[in-house]
């Protein structure tokens, strides 16, 4: 009995991290066009969801302020993505079941991978926000795997290629890398892309590869081991982080204890990082990061309007990549709805194929065959600066043009 009790407790305990919830629904009147938006609204990924929703809300508010779509206002119906493919698919089913057939958002590639087939079997359309796995659109094959799913985020391979290109040019002497990453598809794909992007991997020495379970926050053993292997070789050494969010922040804080950033020539990563640097209150290290967006990268009226709108919502704070992705979802739907002249999902789907709209980076086109938005990738060189906005000095941004099909 004691064994059964212990085993049950263990099972329950190890299941806790995967639990979540879904919900949704809307009672909107018929004279509004409802756009369902799926995003994690609570827990560890709550900040990401909040940013995605903020971006979409800015686009919807701008469209409504401009008169809506043929006089009809847009309404955002937000529902919780949760933390698993099960909760995400339930959220999608809830929206479609409630008649909300224009769906957007989502954070996790695994969740998008689970929801896309559900959407494919329905009359609905999906524009994914942050999901960036290479196979989700036809960015590299030319042919979208799903007829009803579109993607606005740069693919993992694009961000990895971009950071590799810039690091290869700026730090040609760095030939030895340590890598620390989350052991799942995104983490591995990003590192593989970065390594292959540096001269096709030729001449690169990988000193130590460390792959950790997703959401690991204690890296002291890894930092200690990494630090021991770096002594006296600063100019030729680099560290690549295939982590994100709390993982990246935790690593940086623990690395400070060993002065690790001072022992290497370059610290690089791919994926959203601005929020991490902001959370470090001016103590962020010198970092080279590639992702879809940096507020300082684009000198366009749309970007200026976007940054101002977000700042007005959050006391002058700057939008991050997730906000940008949510914004692109809203802009894409607005443009497709205007082109279709109706909210019939089939006609909106057709309009999305090849639609062009003005985004913060300039004109954006969603490939008619690939279903992939041709957005550039931004490589940002940042360092913590307590006296700068958000505690971050954006030293330089390099815009790498879209490289897909």
């Amino acid at each position: 009995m004691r064994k059964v009790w212990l085993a049950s407790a263990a099972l329950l305990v190890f299941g806790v991290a995967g639990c979540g919830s879904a919900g949704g629904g809307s009672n909107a009147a018929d004279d509004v066009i409802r756009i369902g938006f799926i995003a994690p609204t609570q827990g560890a990924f709550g900040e990401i969801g909040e940013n995605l929703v903020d971006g979409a809300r800015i686009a919807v508010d701008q469209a409504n302020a401009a008169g809506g779509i043929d006089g009809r206002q847009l309404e955002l119906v937000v529902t919780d993505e949760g933390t698993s493919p099960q909760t995400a698919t339930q959220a999608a089913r809830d929206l479609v079941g409630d008649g909300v057939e224009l769906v957007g958002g989502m954070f996790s590639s695994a969740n998008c991978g689970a929801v896309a087939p559900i959407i494919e079997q329905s009359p609905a359309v999906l524009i994914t926000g942050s999901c960036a796995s290479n196979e989700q659109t036809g960015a590299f094959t030319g042919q979208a795997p799903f007829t009803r799913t579109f993607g606005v985020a740069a693919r993992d391979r694009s961000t990895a290629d971009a950071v590799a290109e810039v690091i290869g040019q700026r730090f040609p002497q760095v030939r030895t890398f340590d890598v620390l990453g989350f052991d799942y598809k995104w983490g591995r794909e990003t590192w593989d892309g970065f390594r292959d992007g540096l001269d096709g991997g030729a001449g690169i020495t990988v000193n130590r590869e460390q792959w950790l379970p997703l959401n690991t926050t204690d890296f002291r053993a890894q930092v200690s081991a990494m630090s021991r292997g770096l002594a006296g070789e600063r100019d030729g050494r680099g560290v690549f982080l295939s982590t994100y969010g709390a993982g990246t922040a935790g690593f940086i804080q623990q690395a400070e204890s060993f002065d690790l950033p001072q022992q290497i020539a370059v610290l690089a990563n791919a994926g959203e990082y601005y929020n991490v640097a902001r959370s470090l209150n001016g103590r962020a290290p010198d970092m080279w990061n590639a992702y879809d967006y940096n507020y300082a990268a684009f000198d366009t009226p749309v970007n200026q309007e976007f940054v101002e709108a977000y700042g007005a919502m959050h006391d002058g704070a700057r939008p991050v990549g997730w906000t940008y992705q949510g914004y692109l979802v809203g802009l894409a739907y607005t443009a497709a709805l205007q082109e279709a002249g109706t909210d019939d999902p089939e006609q909106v789907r057709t309009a999305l194929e090849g639609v062009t709209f003005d985004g913060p980076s300039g004109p954006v086109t969603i490939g008619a065959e690939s279903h992939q938005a041709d957005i550039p990738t931004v490589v940002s060189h940042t360092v913590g600066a307590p006296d700068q906005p958000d505690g971050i000095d954006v030293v330089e941004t390099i815009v790498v043009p879209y490289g897909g099909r």
Partner: protein
Amino acid sequence: MGEIVAALVAGVAGGVPLFVVASGLTLIYGVMRVLNFAHGALFALGAFVLATVLGGAAPSPLMLVVALLVAAVVVGAVGAVSEVTIFRRLYTRDHTTTLLASYALLLTLGGLTEQIWGVTPRSQAQAIELAGAVGIGGIRVAVYDLVLIGIGLVLAAGLTVLLRRSSFGQNIRAVAHDETMARALGVRARRVQLPVFVLGSALAGLAGALIAPLVSIEPGLAPTFVVQSFAVVIIGGLGSIPGALVAALLIGVLESFAVSFQPGLVGFSLYIGVAAVLLLRPGGLLSTSSGLREA
């Protein structure tokens, strides 16, 4: 040799916060037989309280100590409210009921934390005097790791003295061993249960506060550490504080050695330990029939 010593130090330091949080968990289980799922939320609460008290800026060591104590006291108070309003009513119920109640409390505290502090991650700067690393015998050791090891030793000794040498400790062990007999002998169980729950909760808060300068302080802290602390309790033996100490250090050292010498096993030592113990010694490494009896 230097590599082994450095890995050992990093592993022991990594195990200390686990020990602190798991000792509270196991203490509560040992006396009340409550497997408190909300312990992870109390841990996260400790980190949030410390960051709020210090405001994210680098504190002096004295201010850090004050903030650690404040975090422990605040979380202990939350534990007291939980005991009086929820768990006290459930001590005579079956395990499933208390498990569900504590899980509900975990979700409630998580939601309250998000309401108070939001979902945006924050960080807490290290005290300048405790930042950086020092060279010891040819290896570099993080100063804060040494502090953590020191605090762990003090807490382990303090808990041992409390349980073995004080009359309160005697009462704790009596209630843990046989509550009915203890009552018959004049021990007022209620006067033991509430302080134990408060102490256990305060330890969770202290552990969260201790680790705050090293992690991103955000809602995801709770599930991360509740899993690890339960694993420590399962490996060490439910209700055994020496078991929690041994298991926490074992997990920390195993993980650190995996990093240094067998990277393929990184992240799995926790699960390997739990699986091995459940198979070979289901009661845990240092289990006794009544847990705290041998504390």
